[in-house]
């Protein structure tokens, strides 16, 4: 593992010397339980970027906790969602037990309206964050 990390450091230091690393979103090879959503890819890209920075500065990588939230708009003012929290386990991303799940089926209409607003806010946030 240490040898592998040294190799990664060397590779990254050469890559940054040659130019800039741009990381927008990166679907993990070790996806595991984590769904392939835009939210998940963005969270994984951030964890990846943080690990690259730590490897370049000779710090030990930190074990990430990754969040996913996936919204669906059934109607413009009617949102539903599924969420989860994930951590690396046995080389894959595993569910953090007790976290996540779907929004309640019997939620009142105001809750569905809030979810719809949050879905739009999330889209605005993530597109601004990535593309400026």
């Amino acid at each position: 593992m240490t040898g592998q990390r040294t190799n990664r450091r060397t590779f990254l230091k050469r890559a940054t010397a040659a130019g800039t690393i741009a990381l927008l979103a990166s679907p993990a090879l070790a996806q595991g339980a984590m769904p392939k959503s835009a939210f998940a890819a963005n969270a994984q890209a951030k964890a990846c970027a943080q690990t690259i920075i730590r490897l370049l500065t000779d710090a030990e990588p930190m074990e990430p906790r990754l969040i996913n939230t996936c919204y669906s708009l059934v109607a413009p003012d009617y949102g539903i969602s599924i969420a989860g929290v994930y951590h690396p386990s046995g080389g894959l991303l595993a569910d953090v037990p007790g976290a996540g799940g779907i929004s309640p089926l019997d939620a009142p209409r105001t809750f569905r309206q809030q979810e719809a607003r949050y879905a739009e806010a999330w889209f605005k946030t993530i597109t601004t964050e990535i593309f400026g």
Partner: protein
Amino acid sequence: MASLAVIGNKAGDADAAIATAARTVEAVYAYPYQAHAAIEPMNATALYTPDKCEVWAPTQNGEAALAAFRNGQRPATVMDRIAKGFSDAEILAIANWYGTQAP
């Protein structure tokens, strides 16, 4: 610098600069307690029932907010489900990180 202090911003190396300075000046300043001029209303409401005591207060306490999401005391659509994935230490780390973010 205190080992437990949270560093919000760091520019240069103060310790090294002081160690090599031609002359250093030391002084201790003290001032009486100053009343805050907070922008939020400085009050609190507590609802005490046999099961729990719920307090609404302008504490700006991110750690308590996340803990309240986690145990279902704070109304949420998604933060309750997210907060359940984080331990006390992780919630503290999140709160500390936000605390160091300059606007």
